[in-house]
């Protein structure tokens, strides 16, 4: 009896030590996750002369809004913000409607082309033509230096179709059957019955599409670098980062006069941090409220794949 008591005590003590280790590990991960964001925000509100004395801070030492005021010097930032918002809103609305439409036709077991179209959508997951043929395609379609290049090539992603389709597959077919008997056509059934029932998955996929649009800069870099009024916020930040590296800027200037222009501007760390905050702000603001939708979809997709 005595030994039993002793064993129990030892075990619980072991549990405390390992428990502390586990919490310490998680807290460490959380600190390294959050610290950089806090440092960026603090620097963006800190006086740039003071910043020169040291950049490690969790709270502005010398509070100012000057860094943000100075952003107006980047004359292109207004266009960039406008385009980023427009492509995020427009691209998401167009993307979700197209994705849902395709997903619906592929969820109809009686549709004669279901298998063949589904197969054609699946292949691009495994093999793509590569960046150069794609670049030339966009060029030959005359989509270089257009806003359309932000929306049209991004309309549908096969992964999102798969996720939406698997959600629709789980809806009871009787819902559609009765409408069919009433003589409703397939589009009416989709738009009036199925799409409204897909709200949870529509929310998740819309958020993914929106984040993808907001975060994208490669398309601006490749296709719209010569059209300042078609720039995006991510690309503007990328140019600013690029210009802080002298060797980089000189190399890029050869192909991209826009980058060379940015290189001539002085971009001290304070201004850089202010732009970073502007670019990240929408994500940070909506994140706490919508993060559960992201995760719902992730588990939904994980179960399927």
């Amino acid at each position: 009896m005595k030994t039993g008591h002793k064993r129990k005590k030892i075990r619980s003590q072991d549990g405390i030590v390992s428990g502390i280790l586990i919490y310490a590990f998680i807290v460490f991960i959380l600190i390294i996750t959050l610290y950089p964001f806090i440092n960026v925000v603090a620097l963006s509100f800190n006086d740039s002369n003071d910043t020169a004395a040291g950049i490690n801070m969790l709270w502005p030492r010398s509070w100012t809004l000057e860094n943000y005021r100075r952003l107006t010097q980047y004359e292109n930032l207004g266009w960039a913000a406008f385009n980023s918002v427009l492509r995020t809103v427009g691209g998401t609305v167009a993307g979700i409607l197209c994705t849902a439409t395709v997903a619906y036709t592929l969820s109809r077991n009686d549709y004669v082309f279901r298998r063949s179209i589904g197969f054609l959508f699946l292949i691009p997951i495994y093999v793509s033509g590569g960046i150069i043929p794609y670049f030339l395609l966009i060029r030959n379609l005359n989509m270089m230096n257009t806003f359309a290049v932000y929306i049209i090539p991004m309309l549908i992603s096969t992964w999102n179709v798969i996720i939406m389709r698997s959600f629709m597959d789980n809806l009871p077919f009787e819902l559609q059957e009765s409408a069919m008997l009433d003589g409703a056509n397939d589009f009416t059934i989709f738009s009036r019955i199925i799409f409204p029932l897909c709200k949870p998955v529509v929310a998740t996929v819309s958020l993914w599409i929106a984040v993808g649009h907001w975060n994208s800069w490669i398309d601006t870099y490749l296709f719209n670098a010569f059209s300042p009024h078609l720039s995006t916020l991510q690309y503007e930040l990328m140019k600013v980062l690029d210009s802080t590296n002298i060797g980089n800027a000189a190399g890029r200037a050869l192909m991209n006069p826009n980058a060379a222009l940015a290189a001539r501007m002085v971009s001290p760390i304070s201004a850089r941090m202010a732009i970073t905050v502007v670019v990240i702000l929408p994500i940070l603001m909506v994140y706490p409220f919508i993060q559960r939708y992201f995760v719902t979809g992730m588990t939904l997709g994980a179960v399927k794949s």
Partner: protein
Amino acid sequence: MTKSAKQVNICKKRITPSLLNKQKILMLMSFPFLIWLIIFAYVPLWGWIMAFQNYRPDLGIRNSPWAGLEHFRRLFADQQFHEAFRNTIGQSLFLLAIGFTMPVIFALMLNEVKYLRFKKIAQTISYLPHFVSWVIVASILGLILNTGGPINTLLLNMGLIERPIAFLGVPNMFWPLLAISDTWKNIGWNAIIYIAAIASVDQALYEAAAVDGAGRWRKMWHITLPGIRTVIIILLVLNIGRILDIGFERQILLGNPVNQSHSRTIDQYALEYGTQMFRFSYGTAVGMFKSVISLILVLAANRFARKLDAGVF
């Protein structure tokens, strides 16, 4: 309708004109996207023909002169391509070593947390970096790795270094840096699937183990890990299949002329030759070479993963 009627003969017999007529709205709903798919996914594949030509934009694919395998021969002889190939593999291996294992460990640790509120907050915070762009990560890295930044300050204070290090200016550090920053960005997000898998492990096993006197770590080692082994192995195999698909986004953002010898990947090499030097055919050949090897790897990995899956269930 004539187009779809034509397809009837090729497809199955049960397709009748009346059925097609009945489903014409479904066809109207899907065919425009089929055209979209052909343009944006299949036309680039057709562009692979350029790899065997000396493509000239003014002549187009139809009239450009043929080059045979010349571009591939030049590719295999190019030292810079060897370097890009090595970097692609090296970066991917570092990513597998750190970026693949850390989420598993994080999920295992989170599973031990009994305060649900803390667990939930920890998870929410850990997903956050997944949703910021790589441009933001590059900006953050520029700050964190700054010679006066937190990492250098910490290392100086600990006496591990005597002088601040410009990390992005050291070629040898690029692979681990890329892997660490990717892990930082995705650790929480990639842990979700393991957390879901852990939740479905039979709870009776833990109770039985507790009766036998097994502690926390033994339960983790003998029950939790074997319970999610299948998921881990399948994801590992799929990740290995994608080893060449590391892309060029992060490399453009974090790379610079100094660390280029270790940052430039196959995709970036193709991009630079194709769009900056306008050697379209050569760039296409590079991309095609990568895509074909990648396809073989992915198909092999999928097959292997399916076999594992079937073997367990």
